[in-house]
């Protein structure tokens, strides 16, 4: 394992681990705030119970997210000092803003978790709203920094030095809108459907308390619209990549030869040596239509670009297929659930439908897997660049040798931590009320 590959692996592993927690940290506070608001509106104690349960989950996940995020902020310097020396000043503004969002989140999460009996109901709900807002803002800021790596702007290169650095112009880079939209929707879709799935599983096991029905309903209110909107946001992202990073588009579609009316490859394995994709279902004109909304549009193939600027084609293509397939399933399940809910004017439309419940249960992990796959597409797809078109990843890595050691140590640490978090959350879920919290309720 080369040092560069070890550094990339450690970064990838740290991001893959952290992102699960940040995504839930964005979505779960919204669920708990909605539940608390329903409790204040209706006086129904089941909603309060839900808010408290979700808050406990949020506390555990936030803590692990905070420390794994700290690791990432240090790893930028531990693994990529040469990148940070160049890019830190230019792309640092969103990180500064994220620092504040994160600070606000930590302060109000403390108030929310420990303040049930110490502040007024209104102040408590307000604290929850701030947590939910600052969580989504944190995510947006961090993704803007990543978008800059795809679309570096806000400076002028003179003799290999960035001059006339404009931090806010760097934030307003062209990739920022499509990436933040896609990621924010992904966070709500993954968390919403993830939580809905857990409640669906409990209902399938015969635990049909109002607790689980309310939980399912609130989670769907957040997750389903996001999942349904996500393909549209994906279209915006794909067209952006087609326009600005054609080599990435060619890799994710496993498209080797430039042509008009390019077909879309579904599945298949790209053979980089022979420059062809085998075993894929070809949809005529599909790629031109999707990438440019025009069946005759010309789509550049990988052969158009120097070989040393190709990302690893197979990984990017497969990850992209996984993301799209899972996103599609999530959107379909969401449409189905909302349709049944609307038809019955009541969540019984969902809870009395075992096939739909099973589909929801199946969708539980889909959003998270899709997010991992999606980040693989955007990060591996940007290779060999760390700053697109400007700085190569190989030139950014630390000169320190032996990087396989920290990679293994942190992998082991995160593996252990991941296992413990799963164990803790199972404990939390297992203790969810088995009987109705509200005796005498007939619904």
């Amino acid at each position, binding site marked *: 394992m080369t040092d560069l590959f070890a550094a990339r692996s450690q970064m990838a592993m740290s991001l893959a681990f952290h992102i699960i927690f940040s995504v839930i940290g964005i979505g779960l506070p919204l669920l708990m705030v909605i539940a608390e608001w329903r409790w204040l509106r209706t006086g129904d104690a089941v909603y309060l119970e839900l808010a408290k349960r979700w808050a406990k989950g949020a*506390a*555990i996940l*936030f*803590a*692990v997210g*905070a*420390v*794994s*995020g*700290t*690791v990432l*902020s*240090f790893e930028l*310097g*531990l693994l990529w*000092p*040469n*990148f*940070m*020396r*160049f890019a*830190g*000043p*230019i792309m*640092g*503004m969103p*990180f*500064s*803003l*994220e*620092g*504040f969002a994160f*600070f*606000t989140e*930590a*302060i*109000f999460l*403390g*108030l929310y*978790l*420990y*303040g049930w009996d110490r502040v007024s109901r209104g102040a408590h709900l307000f604290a929850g709203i701030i947590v939910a807002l600052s969580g989504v803002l944190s995510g947006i800021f961090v993704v803007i920094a990543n978008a800059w790596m795809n679309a570096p702007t806000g400076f002028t290169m003179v003799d*290999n030095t*960035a*001059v*006339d*650095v404009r*931090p806010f112009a760097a934030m307003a880079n062209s990739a920022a809108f499509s990436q933040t939209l896609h990621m924010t929707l992904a966070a709500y879709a993954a968390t919403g459907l993830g939580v809905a799935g857990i409640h669906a599983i409990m209902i399938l096991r015969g635990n049909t308390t109002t607790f689980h029905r309310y939980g399912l309903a609130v989670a769907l209110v957040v997750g389903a619209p996001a999942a349904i909107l996500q393909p549209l946001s994906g279209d915006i992202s794909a067209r952006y990549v087609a326009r600005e990073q054609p080599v990435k588009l060619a890799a994710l579609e496993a498209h080797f030869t430039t042509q008009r009316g390019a077909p879309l490859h579904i599945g298949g394995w790209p053979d980089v040596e022979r420059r062809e994709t085998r075993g894929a279902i070809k949809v005529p004109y599909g790629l031109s239509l999707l990438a440019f909304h025009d069946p005759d549009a010309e789509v550049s193939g990988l052969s158009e670009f120097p070989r040393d600027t190709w990302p690893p084609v197979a990984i990017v293509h497969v990850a992209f297929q996984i993301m799209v397939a899972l996103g599609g399933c999530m959107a379909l399940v969401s449409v189905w659930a909302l349709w049944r809910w609307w038809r019955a004017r009541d969540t019984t439309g969902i809870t009395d439908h075992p096939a739909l419940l099973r589909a929801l249960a199946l969708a539980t992990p889909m959003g998270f897997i899709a997010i991992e796959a999606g980040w693989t597409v955007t990060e591996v797809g940007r290779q060999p660049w760390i700053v697109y078109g400007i*700085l190569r990843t190989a*030139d950014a890595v630390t*000169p*320190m040798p*032996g990087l396989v050691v*920290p990679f293994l140590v942190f992998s082991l*640490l995160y593996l252990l*931590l991941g296992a*413990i*978090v799963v164990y*803790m959350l199972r*404990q939390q879920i297992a203790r969810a009320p088995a009987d109705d919290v509200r005796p005498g309720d007939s619904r």
Partner: protein
Amino acid sequence: MIAFLQGLTAAEWTAWVVVVALNAYMLFAGADFGGGVWDLFASGPRRREQRELISHAIGPIWEANHVWLIVVVVVLFVCFPPAFAAFGTVLHIPLSLMLIGIVLRGSAFVFRAYSYGPRTEQRRWGQVFAISSLVTPVVLGMCVGAVASGRVGDALAAIGHAPAAVLPSSASSVALGTPRASFSSLYVVPWLSPFTIAVGAMALALFSFLGATYLTVEAEGDAELQDDFRRRALGSAVSSMVAATIALELGATRGGVMARLAGIGWSLPLLIASGLACVASIVALLQRRYRLARLGAGAWVTLVLWGWVMAQFPLIIPPSLTIDAAAAPTRVLTDTLAVLAVGGVILIPSLWYLIKVFKTEN
């Protein structure tokens, strides 16, 4: 003093913001680390009460306290990227160890708080929390000692470095290949020496002292519990003084930054003031005037930090990298300072509210 302040560059102002954030991290999170240490060494008939008090005191605020470190790191890599890159490279090993400590500590704390498992399981999380609270400040102190000793700067000279915003492939001074010096001389020797160990021990003792002193106030209403932490505070105050003396002695003999501590006008008065604050907090503890002791403890730690900073001013990495030379373009500094000022308007009232809600009852 006004002349001194007027002479400061934008970079130096920004560097002071980093120090203020580091100061806040030491005063707030440092005390939380100290709490973890006293969890580890909880003893005597009130062992359980001690642990409960610590957990109660830290619970609502430790996440917010931790964020000061993120502020330090972010402002450092935005405004002083060559320094951040240097720390990340030369101090890779201790910073990684510190991160492992931070990860274990933060996770174990919530795992213990939310565990439904058997008591033995909770106790195990408590041990992980306590042990990592002990190790992390030592490593943090060693990193600070490594910078102050000038050895990070020496290693950097061998590895090569470049100013901010320069592409690495073009900067011939950046050794992207293998540097000629040995692995240990670049990545181990700078942070592993008697001096850095003394500074690490001093950090641990100071954080323990802060933790114990704050806990005497938290324990108001329970005189016995207060006495437990009073003894611990006095013990760690003495340990801090011993460690500080050893660190000063070692630093002076090695010709590092400590030898020049009196060289810059501000350092000596700060050193004397820190000694006075130390004596004042010990006297206040002896007289059981706990709130005064807490004030003195905070002042002591603050003055020690500023004493170090002023001793190496205007260098960011001794022996030669100045704050100005390591700074990002001025526009970045002014924009960041503006954002920090605006952010502070939201942040400081929020922090004040948090502390008011959870700390006024005592």
